[in-house]
């Protein structure tokens, strides 16, 4: 009975934000003291996603940035982390990886903004992606360092002893074994990029309008219905990734 009660309370607490945001995204005229908006309509969704192409463009732009960043970082950090993990100076390299990871992205952006402005990269999608690389690449390396261990190193040497070349070592042994870690890295770096606000705003100087910036814009305009709608859109890809992770990755690799 106690477990049942706990589950109910927990479910309510967890689902409440999603419920509130969904209700608001379909609402209009939410005057005090009404608990629910006076009108429910599809107009907010229709207006923002079909009539005003701004939000659709932001969704597409955010997806492009986050997918590109996570794919690139996953690929790069897989190889770099291997060299770092088996390096004599492993601890020193990892220390370097941790610095940008803990440094507040918004302060980092404020300090590197000068260089981006001088090089003409500020306000461009490429500039924002490069800046996001500064924080996601070290994070990818931190994720992969727990993957590379002595057992893998021995396995790599065994393949070489049995006559396998580097290509075969990677395609037949290391990459199949790393599938779980690769997916975790892809998901995590996607989330960092997808959720990023401060760094994107400063390096993008307001011109690179990702979905997170749109939420802030609607909040500042006091348009709670549009902000709720953009919030729902912002939560959708992570929920999808979580579902994929739980349904396929977690079951298969754990």
């Amino acid at each position, binding site marked *: 009975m106690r*477990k049942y009660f*706990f*589950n109910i309370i*927990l*479910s309510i607490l*967890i*689902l409440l*934000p*999603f419920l*509130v*945001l969904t209700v*608001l995204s379909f609402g209009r005229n939410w005057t*005090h*003291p009404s*608990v629910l908006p006076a009108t429910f309509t599809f107009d907010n969704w229709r207006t923002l996603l079909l009539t005003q192409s701004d939000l659709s463009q932001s969704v597409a732009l955010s997806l492009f940035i986050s997918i590109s960043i996570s794919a690139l970082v996953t690929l*790069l950090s897989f190889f*770099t982390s291997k*060299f*770092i993990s088996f390096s004599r100076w492993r601890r020193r*390299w*990892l*220390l*370097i*990886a*941790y*610095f*940008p990871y*803990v*440094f*507040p*992205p*918004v*302060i980092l952006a*404020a*300090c*590197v903004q000068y*260089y981006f402005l001088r090089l003409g990269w500020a306000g461009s999608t490429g500039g924002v992606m490069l800046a996001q690389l*500064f924080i996601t*690449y*070290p994070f990818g*390396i931190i994720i992969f360092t727990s993957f590379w261990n002595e057992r893998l190193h021995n396995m790599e040497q065994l393949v070489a002893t049995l006559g396998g070349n*580097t290509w075969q070592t990677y395609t037949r042994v290391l990459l199949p074994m790393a599938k779980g870690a690769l997916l975790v890295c892809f998901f995590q770096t996607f989330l960092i990029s*997808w*959720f990023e*606000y*401060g760094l994107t705003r400063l390096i993008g100087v307001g011109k690179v309008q990702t979905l*997170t910036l749109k*939420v*802030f814009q609607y*909040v500042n305009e006091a348009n*709670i219905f549009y*902000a*709720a709608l953009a*919030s729902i859109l*912002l*939560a959708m890809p*992570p*929920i999808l990734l*979580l579902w994929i992770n*739980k349904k396929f990755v977690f079951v298969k690799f754990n």
Partner: protein
Amino acid sequence: MNIIRLFNLTLFLLTAAVPLALALGYALLYSLGATGVLNEGITLVNWYKTLINNNLWQSIGYSIYIAFITMIIAIGLALWAVVRHGNVFRSGYTAFLIYLPLTLPATVMGFYSFQLLAKSGLLSRLAFQVGLLHDLAYFPILINDLWGVGIIFTHICMATPFFIILFTNLYHNENLKDFIALAQTLGAKASQVTWQIIIPVLLQKSFATLVLYFVFIMSSYEIPLLLGSQSRQMISVFTIEKLQRFNLQDIPQAYAISVLYGLLLIILIINLLGRSK
């Protein structure tokens, strides 16, 4: 192979270490008056002004206060949930559900808290409907307040599920079940098992993660930007506001704060990684 290794490590340095070094270097030069539009030669005046600025120390203190209260409550809730209802998070729909809050970014959680806790928010409306509230003016100020209630609430909402997942995984990875069984065989009471085995092991094993999370809360930007007050600001908001104010004289001080905070974090990480090995 050596070329590939060299390429990888160089690329890593160029994207991880060099930008941070350039950022801190530029901030240091600006704060010392070596660069910047209004600076007239090298000077320590900006650093002096920064270090005697009460608002800076107040901001750091406020950030520590927010992070500390959040961590205490979130860790307490997570430990209680894992110790009392640990199995709930291992199987069934709740094992999936507990991951859901992690899909909401700080911006969205801040916006949700605003809609929930503001004077005209959902809580005040519900209180009005059930007769607990008759006038909006009597609803407590929970948003943009001096004590950062809204900020703390939002961070707790984000941190607690994360800690529950962390502690649940540790509970099983560290074979705590076996330790508990052994302790009970030796005559330990339930409270002794909780306070002398489960909680110390979970906290010790997660120490590095907890310290990093503490730093993340201290450095958070979006949530205090949305829910914080103007008179008390967390360190990231304080620094960025100083940088973007109309008063150009504040900019060198903002860079000095960035360097100072950056150095504090670097010292913390060196100590933390040194301790964890």
